């Protein structure tokens, strides 16, 4: 399927990442957004709120982020593509109903324009310290997909992709932007609607009598029925069976939660996405994501000028984590260098997957700015020793 033209602002634009994200959502067919103002994410909904009335969409500013997240989960049951947008403190509040969306298997998109934390932290300045919260922030075991744009262009492209993944896997998908990308203005090319690939929700063709809301297909994904179409189904945040009925047993828990988690885990090779550059023959591979990926490339240029064989692995999808790729690289390189704007989060995943085969060197940054390329370069040079 391709995009529905009414939401697509085809053209060459000079946009910031927040606006580009909003345009991506509209191009993807999102028609319901609930949100609560929070810096540095608010521009996304400001853009949407201005354009939605002309395309049959509804934006509602809710009373808080708890309500915003609950509203998009409720709205998604009508078949509408839904999204909410926030930053750190609001992301914390959304965790409750991100868990509900994962448990009920509701497709929706949550954008977190990351700023410095913890708590109120640095509202107007960049951070990347929510990447583990994105993976584990709601309680219990649940699947999650998270994408990480490095530019306004990618804020557009990956927002479309976030909706496509949400629809494909019936799960909440997170777009982990950061303040720097969100507030950075660059050229953004929005293609014609006919050239934007859009996945729309597949509705069950079963008759209501034969429909079981949580009966999985071969990929582990159940078929969707809309509220109001006569299926009279039940959905709950409690552990439930294929009928959607609560069953309070360890057996049902195992069946339900395993299927939920496996839906993403076992299909990881269809979701994982990264870009690699010059990893063949590299001694050191720099792994980075979001704005830090760009700064890291500047550092790689510096290190190469000093004769180090450096490869680059940029994560486009953070979760699921590209475990297989890291293992494969670990077997043939000397070290990973992982710069990120936190005090060591994704580096732990790299270390886990490297399993001692290659050294793992973090380049932490507490937030409020990006790394100096020189600092990353220094660690690359050390790692190459």
């Amino acid at each position, binding site marked *: 399927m391709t995009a529905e033209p009414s939401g697509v602002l085809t053209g060459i634009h000079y946009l910031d990442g927040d606006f580009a994200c909003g345009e991506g959502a509209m191009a993807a067919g999102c028609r319901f957004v609930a949100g609560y103002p929070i810096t540095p994410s608010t521009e996304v909904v400001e853009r949407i709120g201005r354009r939605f009335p002309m395309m049959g969409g509804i934006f509602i500013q809710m009373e808080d982020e708890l309500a915003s997240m609950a509203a998009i989960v409720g709205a998604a049951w009508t078949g509408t593509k839904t999204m909410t947008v926030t930053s750190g403190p609001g992301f914390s509040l959304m965790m409750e109903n991100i868990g509900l969306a994962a448990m009920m298997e509701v497709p929706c998109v949550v954008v977190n324009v990351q700023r410095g934390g913890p708590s109120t932290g640095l509202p107007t300045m960049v951070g990347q310290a929510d990447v583990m919260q994105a993976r584990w922030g709601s309680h219990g075991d649940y699947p999650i997909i998270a994408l990480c744009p490095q530019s306004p262009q990618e804020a557009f492209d990956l927002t479309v992709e976030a909706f496509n993944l949400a629809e494909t896997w019936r799960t909440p998908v997170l777009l982990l932007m950061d303040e720097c990308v969100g507030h950075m203005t660059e050229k953004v090319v929005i293609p014609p609607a006919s050239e934007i690939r859009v996945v729309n929700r597949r509705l069950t063709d079963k008759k209501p009598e034969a429909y079981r809301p949580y009966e999985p297909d071969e990929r582990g994904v159940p078929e969707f029925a809309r509220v*109001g179409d006569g299926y009279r189904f039940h959905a709950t945040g409690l552990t439930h069976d294929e009928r959607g009925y609560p069953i309070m047993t360890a057996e049902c828990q195992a069946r339900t939660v395993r299927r939920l988690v496996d839906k993403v885990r076992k299909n990881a090779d269809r979701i994982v996405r990264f870009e690699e550059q010059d990893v063949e023959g590299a001694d050191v591979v720099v792994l980075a994501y979001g704005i830090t990926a760009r700064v890291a490339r500047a550092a790689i240029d510096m290190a190469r000028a000093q004769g180090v064989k450096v490869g680059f692995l940029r994560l486009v999808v953070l979760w699921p984590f590209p475990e297989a790729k890291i293992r494969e690289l670990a077997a043939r390189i000397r070290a990973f260098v992982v710069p990120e704007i936190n005090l060591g989060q994704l580096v732990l995943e790299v270390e886990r997957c490297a399993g001692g085969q290659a050294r793992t060197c973090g380049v932490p940054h507490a937030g409020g700015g990006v790394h100096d390329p020189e600092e990353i370069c220094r660690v690359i040079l050390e790692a190459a020793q």
Partner: protein
Amino acid sequence: MSTEPAPRSTEEQHPITPYVRMDRMPHIWCPTCGIGTVVKCYVQALVEEKLDLDKVAVVSGIGCTGRVAGYVKLDSFHTTHGRAIPFATGLKLCRPELLVTVFSGDGDLVGIGGNHFIHAARRNQDVLVILVNNFIYGMTGGQNAPTTPLGAKSSTMFFGNFERPFSLPHLAASSGATYVARWTSLHIRRLTRSIREAVRRKGFRFIEVVAPCSTLYARLNKLGTGYDLMKFYHDFSEIRNDADTSELDIEFQSRIVCGRFVDKERPTYKESMDAHYEKILGSRYVPMKPEGGWIP
């Protein structure tokens, strides 16, 4: 549009059996708990109103009353604690043709969910809220609620509650609800009639049903059986339609005022939005379609 069988009263089948998920029986509610009665009144009202039940959705939060969504044979959602109203808000806005009922308890809707309650009322979201007030947190074991009467014991206020409770009709009315009523779970005919009336209205409609927890509240306060307790409230209730909502406080083991207190018209959130955008944007405005905004 499906044709619903009329509720029958036979020895073999309870009249609401066709509208309940019988494969989930027995339910979790205690003997003499009032919640089941409220469900019966609700279903009866829908059927008497001859609504297309395919176009009715029930949203519940967490708690004893939160389980209602799991038992009614309708599109039904058992959500997170306190969030039934915002969940229902999103659902209703994106499929405006549905009747969306929020069915939950006092702790859920005005304790943890209190902020959502007042804002949905303020915006006049088009949802019918049926709140069963059992005076305590029932499912978690009888803890103090924002509705526990002054002086009543709860498991977290062993020496009696000293916090002033909400008067729920007053809270709803002053927040902007367009229909406000209070009954007890023994006012079966009046409650059914009130639900029928509320179903025909639009906007934020609120019905409080007093049904003190027959297990925990009754035991902690030595008030006899659940039936004794309900009968007390039924017998000591005074029906005063259009009463001033500032005079509806519930005191411990005292007379309570029931009735319909508010019944007025005010544009719903969606109506206000549509009218506003039509005025500002004219034919450029594309409203959400009754059947929803899904793009095939």
